[in-house]
Structure formats: C-alpha cells, structure tokens
C-alpha cells in the first residue's frame, strides 16, 4: 500500500453545470448529492470521534485516578502523553499503518492518544481541586478513601473533567478529518478528495464544524445536568 493507492480512491466527479465547472458554491449540486455523498462519511466520522474520545477518556480517567493517589505519577504521565500529543497527526497515522494496518483501529489509536494529555490533566487537576475541608469532613465522618474519591472528589471534579472532554472532543472532530490517511473513512476523504471544488469543501468542512458544535452542546448539556450545584452557586 502506498500513497498512490490512497489517492486512487479520490474521484474526480463529472461537472455538469457552469457553477460546478467553475468549482463554485452550488446549492443545487449540494441538494442533489448530499444524501449519497456525505451522509455515510458523516456517520463514519462521528463513529471515529465517539470511539476515540471514549477510549481516550477511559484510559486518561483511569490514569488520573491512579495518579491522584500516587502524585509522583503525574509528572511522568504528563510527559508521556505530552510526547504523544506532539507527534504530528499525519505522521502518527502513517507511522501506525505498518503496525496496525489500515482502518478503524489505527485511526482510533492515533486519535485517542491525542485526547490523553488534555483529559488526564483535567482529571488530575479536578480531583485535586476538591476543597480540603470537604475531604477532611468526609474522612472525619467515616467515609473510606474510596468513598471519598467516588462520592466527593470525582463529583466535584466533574466540571474540570467535562471541560477536558469537551476540548478533546472538538479537537478530535478536526483531527479525524485526517483519518483517511489511515484509510479509516470519515469526512476527511471528501475534503481532500476535491479541495478545489468549493461546494464539496464547504459541505464536508461544514459538517465537521456542525458535528463539533453539536457534540460540544450535548456535552455542555450533560455537564449542566450532572453538576446542578455549580449553577446554584452562581445564582
């Protein structure tokens, strides 16, 4: 497999109208082609984002919980996830291909590793931010260490954790556009398939933006639902 095989998938479509042959923004073309060309890649893109963020969250949250009890781990974990974070994304997809092959797995490994640093830092910061007196009162009333973690520290860390997941999600929507380098599908293939044709770029790029906004809105909504005290405190 090589670059050529990847780009061989790119189709140069037949351009019928003036608008299309000028590579313009053509509402008629968009309406006609939307269902066939964009719906499936959109959902594939969404799938990539959701799986990657979920995997990244599970790993980062678990690391965060472990490092919260063993503070010396925080530095090394941030260092390691920081290194992952700095690998150029296209390079990451291509570096993984020889190991994990083309497809979903490669994309998810690369995408989720980018979320680790963001989510881990927020989990650790959020857990550490629980007020010392709440922790003291909890222990003094006879909560075990685990109960303090799950009933006091984790709930109080939710705003920070949500903030991390929201940034990670928005970032991943963007990065997933590069997943087509690993032949994992998504909206990226369409964008790069015809960069010249405005209608195509606007629709495919626009769908990424819409997805990012909608996911962020949903996460914000979930955050509000799960942290009612935050709003009560501001009122």
């Amino acid at each position, binding site marked *: 497999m090589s670059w050529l095989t990847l780009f061989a998938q790119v189709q140069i479509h037949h351009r019928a109208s003036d608008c299309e042959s000028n590579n313009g923004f053509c509402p008629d073309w968009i309406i006609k082609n939307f269902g066939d060309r964009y719906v499936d890649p959109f959902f594939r893109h969404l799938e990539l984002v959701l799986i990657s963020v979920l995997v990244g969250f599970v790993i980062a949250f678990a690391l965060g919980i472990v490092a919260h009890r063993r503070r010396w781990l925080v530095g090394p974990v941030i260092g390691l996830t920081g290194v992952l974070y700095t690998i150029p994304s296209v390079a990451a997809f291509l570096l993984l291909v020889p190991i994990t092959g083309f497809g979903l797995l490669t994309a998810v490994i690369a995408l989720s590793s980018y979320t680790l640093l963001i989510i881990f830092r927020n989990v650790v910061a959020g857990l550490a931010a629980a007020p010392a007196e709440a922790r003291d009162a909890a222990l003094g009333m*006879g909560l075990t260490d685990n109960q303090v973690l799950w009933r006091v520290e984790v709930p109080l860390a939710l705003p920070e954790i949500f903030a991390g997941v929201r940034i990670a999600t928005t970032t991943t929507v963007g990065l997933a556009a590069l997943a087509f380098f690993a032949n994992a599908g998504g909206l990226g293939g369409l964008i790069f398939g015809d960069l010249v044709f405005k209608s195509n770029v606007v629709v495919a790029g626009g769908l990424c933006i819409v997805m990012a906004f909608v996911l962020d809105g949903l996460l914000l909504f979930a955050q509000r639902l799960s942290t009612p005290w935050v709003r009560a405190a501001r009122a």
Partner: protein
Amino acid sequence: MAAALEFQQVSKTYPGSDEPAIQSLSFEVPAGDICVLVGPSGCGKTTTMRMVNRMVSITSGEILLDGRSVLDRKAYELRREIGYTIQQIGLFPHETVAANIATVPKLLGWPKDRIRERVHALLDMFSLPQDMAGRYPAQLSGGQRQRVGVARALASDPSIMLMDEPFGAIDPITRGRLQNEFLRLQGELRKTIVFVTHDIDEAIKMGDRIAVLKKGGVLAQYATPAELLLAPVDAFVEDFVGADRALKRLALLRVRDVDLWKAPRVRPGDPVTQAQEQLADSDLPYSLLIDADGKPLGWLSDRDLAGERVPDEAGTAATPRLDQDSVLRDALAELLEEDTQYGPVVDERGTVIGVLSIELIAQFLASKDPRELDPPERAGVEP
C-alpha cells in the same frame, strides 16, 4: 446514651519532628459534659481532638470511649460513631443540605424513610426551614451553613461529638446566637462533647470543664470554668484567662441563680401606708409600681406617694428590665448603660421576680464560691 471519654498518658509526636505535639495527656470527660480544649495556637488542642476519632494517629497512650480503646476497631467504623464538625464546616458543595445531613445515616445503611424523617427533624431542631433541604451549601448564609454542619454531625445521634471551633468563622452576633442555641440543645441531648477553641470567653461560656493546654501539648489545668477563674494553677493559666478573670466570672452565673433583692411592689390604687410599710422593710429606697399582671411600671418617688392612694403612673421608668436568663455580665452592662444601681428582674412572662443591684453583683465578685451569696433578703415572690 452518652459516652465517657478518657485520655490515658496520650502522647503525639509527628513524624520528622523532635518535639512532641502532645505530652502525656491524661484527663476524663464525664458522660454528657462539654469539655473545652483551649490554649494558644500551637498548643495541640486540635491535634488532641483529632486523636479521638483517629484523624491523627496516637503515638503512645490510650484513648478510651466508654472504657473501650478507640484503636480496637477500624478507623472508619469509629468515626461513624462520633459526630465531627470543623471550623471550615466542610459541607459537600455538590450535595444538597438534605444529602449533606444524611451522610452518616447513609453510610450506616439506614432505610430511606428513616433518613428522610431524621433530616426533617434536624432541620426543625436547628430552626432551619424545611424547604432548605433541597438547597446547596453555596445558597446558604454563613450561620445557616454552620447550623447544617452541626446538624450533619448529629445526624446519626452519636453519643460523642468533636467540634473544632464550630462557631469560629462567623460574625460575633451570629456566633453568640448559635452558642446559645447549641447550649439549649445540649441541655436536651446531653452529648459528650470535645470542643476546641482559642477563645477563653467561648470556653467559659460553653464548657462544663475546660482543659487549658500550653505550647508543646502540656495540660496546664483541667477544671470547671469557675475553678479556672477563681484559682488558676500557675502564671500561664492566669495570664491566658486574662486580667479580667474576675469580671469573666460574671458570665458564669445567670440572673435567676442569684438571690435577688425583694422588690417592694405596689399596684395602682393600693393604700400608700401599705407601700410605706413595705418600703421600710426593704433594701430599696423606692417602691416598684406593677400592673395587674405583675409587670413593672416604674419606681415611685416620695412625691408619687404623697396622696392616700398609689397613683397609676410612676415618676421614674423601671428600666432596665433584666431577663432572668441573662448572665450577670450582660445584666451589669445593662445597668451601667442605664446609669442606675438596680433594675427589676422579670421572668419569661414579664412578671417581676425580684431586683438585681450592682451591690449584689459586687458581693458575688467578692465571694470565693460563685454560688455562695449572702443577700440582704431573699427574693420571696408573692403571687
């Protein structure tokens, strides 16, 4: 059922420190008493309190609750049996007032109905409105948070409570009110309480017994407030209690506990001769005019008694009216404020039960035992 608490040769040295924080501390707290730990900062009073529920480990010695060592069960089990409040309160910001109060009952696995009933009862007990149950700590005032904190500590009805400056972080007026409220509750609950404060006035007000600690965790004196004020064992305690310790004793006694002067009381329309007879019998130079309910109307001067019958109005107002539940210190302040030597003392219905004078207070200050007063006449109150 209240627990007795006993410290036996308890010492604490923090790891990495040469100096012990607590040195061979021994004292007993009888069941149902408030024991106040007081001393300058760094004297180890909070450390001492926190060793009881093992928030601080004990280096050597024994702490017994009801004769049983606190070390013979898991720390979290011990802590669930002991009410715990701290100065910063430590309410959980993410939980409602009801959920906060329900913390220990939930840990103990109480059924939901019982928890709900208990929360309601506690809100009532602390004069908090029931609709506060659903609010978050950030929505409460400082005084309300403080009350919720104490209610939470009482939730499972523990026999012993640890209170670390529980009224420390609030304004003096609210603090005074909460202290009174708490003392009234304690009158019914009779918990064994370890109460930490740096404020000697609070210690005297709240304590049945006071342990004065000095730097290095050494017990300087363990005594009742009256003993502490009358007979400080050394210069340190004397200094800590303050140069005004004689005056502080005035906070130990309530007006109703004093053998008050009997008031020469007359009603409008009484014959003046009767008033004059009473007056001759009394330590007071003036008769007190009262209404049909026994409430004070004013002091009658000689001029007021010139006629045959006692008039409806008196020349001088009978102020201040002293509440029988006030402490002597406050009553004295009221007398001085009104620039008068004596004032009528009234019960909760406003009826005169006697007269308190600065002279009586002076006698109390001169006496060695605060309960031994030799009044000129007992305050016999006729119906």
